[in-house]
């Protein structure tokens, strides 16, 4: 895979003094393990920052690296190299776990771009408190209403069950709601995929990137409500 973006600085090998890419884990000339410098997960794998990623290629790279970085290989090396292999192995695992999961990867890349979902909501609260205005909710109010109503139904269902009765009509409503929410999740997944591709292909268009980022955040916030709700619905429908 070719690295398209982010012009790399040079890394001078500590052992033989030859030049390497800044991302290099090993010296291209002498093969020695290079120092660990804290870096983001994309650079760790030598990948450009993209939402869409070839998982199969990533997996191959992960196994290759995890073999080559394994601390067992460095028991007879210097203390520094031992240390680097430990550090790198641990980062490798975190990076792999994060990047292989499309949603985790999305949140991660957004955070690299300075967007943190949790802080977003907190920031909106802070802004509202500071200006004495009503907080701008991070999801549209119709979704909040929907969530609230469904929670009411769930409560009814739980109460009916606790009283030994199962209201078949309520159950049907909840099953319909469940279908509906699964459908929404599916749609939002397709929307996300579209946005990923759009962002990836507009490296030279900051405005497009901004809008697609915002749309992604919006979708992720919606999804987080829906997922929580589905968990509760499943729980209530279980008998």
């Amino acid at each position: 895979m070719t690295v398209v973006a982010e012009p790399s600085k040079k890394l001078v090998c500590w052992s033989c003094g030859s030049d390497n890419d800044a991302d290099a884990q090993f010296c291209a000339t002498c093969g020695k393990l290079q120092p660990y410098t804290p870096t983001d997960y994309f650079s760790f794998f030598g990948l450009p920052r993209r939402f869409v990623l070839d998982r199969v290629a990533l997996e191959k790279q992960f196994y290759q690296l995890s073999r080559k970085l394994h601390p067992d290989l460095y028991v007879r090396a210097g203390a520094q190299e031992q240390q680097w292999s430990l550090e790198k192995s641990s980062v490798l695992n975190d990076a792999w776990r994060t990047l292989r999961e499309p949603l985790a990867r999305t949140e991660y890349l957004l955070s690299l771009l300075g967007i943190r979902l949790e802080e977003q909501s907190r920031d909106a609260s802070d802004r509202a408190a500071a200006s004495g205005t009503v907080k701008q909710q991070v999801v549209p109010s119709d979704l909040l209403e929907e969530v609230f109503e469904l929670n009411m139904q769930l409560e009814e269902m739980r109460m009916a069950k606790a009283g030994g009765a199962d209201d078949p009509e309520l159950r049907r409503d909840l099953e319909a709601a469940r279908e509906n929410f699964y459908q929404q999740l599916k749609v939002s997944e397709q929307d996300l995929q579209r946005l990923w591709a759009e962002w990836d292909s507009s490296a030279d268009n900051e405005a497009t990137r901004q809008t697609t980022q915002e749309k992604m955040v919006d979708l992720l916030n919606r999804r987080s409500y829906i997922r929580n709700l589905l968990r509760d619905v499943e729980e209530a429908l279980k008998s």
Partner: protein
Amino acid sequence: MAYSDKVIEHYNNPRNVGQMDKNSTAVGTGLVGAPECGDVMRLQIKVNPETRVIEDAKFKTFGCGSAIASSSLATEWVKGKTVDEALEIKNTDIVKELALPPVKIHCSVLAEDAIRAAIGDWKKKNVALGEQAAVPVAIAAN
């Protein structure tokens, strides 16, 4: 996670659970949510149009114990206050009163957001009626 006694007390014995007619002009409704956990909270106030005193408050929260306790406490606190006084309630007051741990601060923020949303809703309705038109949704200096 261990809840403080006060949280447990409010949780087992929530004050002012319920709802009011959200179409009434005297009633302000705030519906807020925390995307982190998916919890939602509805807080309603009933305001005397002459005195601007909050005469009644109700809440309904689907969320964790801290969110329930925070909203329960919030309804207790806003009652008897004017809307402007109620806007002074800060989530940090709630955190202190309920001894909430750091991970539960967002639950108290939800309650503060809900108070402000309910008051905002009430003001909007009453501005729309041509009353108190001079007061925007802002904290009036008292």
